[in-house]
């Protein structure tokens, strides 16, 4: 019984030279129909990353380390912050940048590990739907929120609220 040892399937062409053979169709790169999207996504991860370090470290410091820390967090705490446009836009920027940064990160991970076309497609559909809902919800909450609600006919106390 003889064993047939085959030539390697890649790396050599018929003339025996390495690296000068034709590229099999399944290894050809796309024709660039996606334009520069991946380059902009790569750049966005780095630019948004730098900004997010500042926004999130500031967020954690102000909410958890100053004063009574976590004990101070309740409705009045959030209302007091969002009565000020500065914190509204801080949190809005954090929401959008973090969600887009995280969505693109998870998109990369799906592309890396989900091998079937259909699996990759549906995982990304779920990802984009979830991200869209969270971004829209968060944006609406920041800007339609009333920091001075009247509960059971009583104005909630808050230094930032107008006198009833």
């Amino acid at each position, binding site marked *: 019984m003889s064993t047939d040892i085959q030539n390697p399937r890649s790396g050599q062409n018929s003339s025996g030279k390495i690296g000068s053979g034709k590229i099999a169709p399944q290894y050809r790169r796309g024709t660039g129909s996606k334009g520069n999207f991946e380059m902009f996504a790569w750049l966005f991860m*780095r630019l948004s*990353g730098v900004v997010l370090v500042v926004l999130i470290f500031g967020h954690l410091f102000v909410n958890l380390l100053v004063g009574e*820390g*976590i004990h101070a967090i*309740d409705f009045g705490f*959030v209302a007091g912050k969002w009565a000020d446009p500065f914190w509204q836009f801080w949190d809005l920027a954090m929401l959008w940048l973090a969600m887009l940064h995280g969505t693109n990160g998870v998109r990369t991970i799906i592309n890396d590990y989900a091998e079937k076309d259909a699996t990759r497609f549906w995982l990304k559909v779920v990802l984009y739907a979830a991200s869209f809902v969270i971004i829209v919800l968060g944006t609406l909450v920041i800007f*339609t929120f009333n920091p001075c*609600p009247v509960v059971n006919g009583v104005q909630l106390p808050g230094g930032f609220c107008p006198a009833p």
Partner: protein
Amino acid sequence: MPTKPAGTLYRGREGMWSWVGHRITGVVIFFFLLVHVLDTSLVRVSPEAYTAVIGAYKNPLMALGETGLVAAIVFHAFNGLRIIAVDFWKKGAKYQRQMLWVVLALWLVTFAAFAIRHLSLALGGH
């Protein structure tokens, strides 16, 4: 005599393990973020709903979870800055290994400061 490959920027050793850590912390932070936007959105439902859910978070187990989350965030932040340096600084790739040790040192200091403050507030009673 053939020697063992010494590892490259992304295969084996510091380069690869920092990449693994960056992925895992990234996914953890992303799923937390989804939940965090949902719970904060309760301020739009009613003051009682928000304060009730936040009140349910104020227990020792969640305090440990928050501390772990901050550990992940701080690593992801500092290692992200290292990745930017690898990509944009001329000598970034050459010093990526040394930069990881700087990242880990900064991570330890920042995380320890946060953990001491947050856990003493959260577990110290009120």
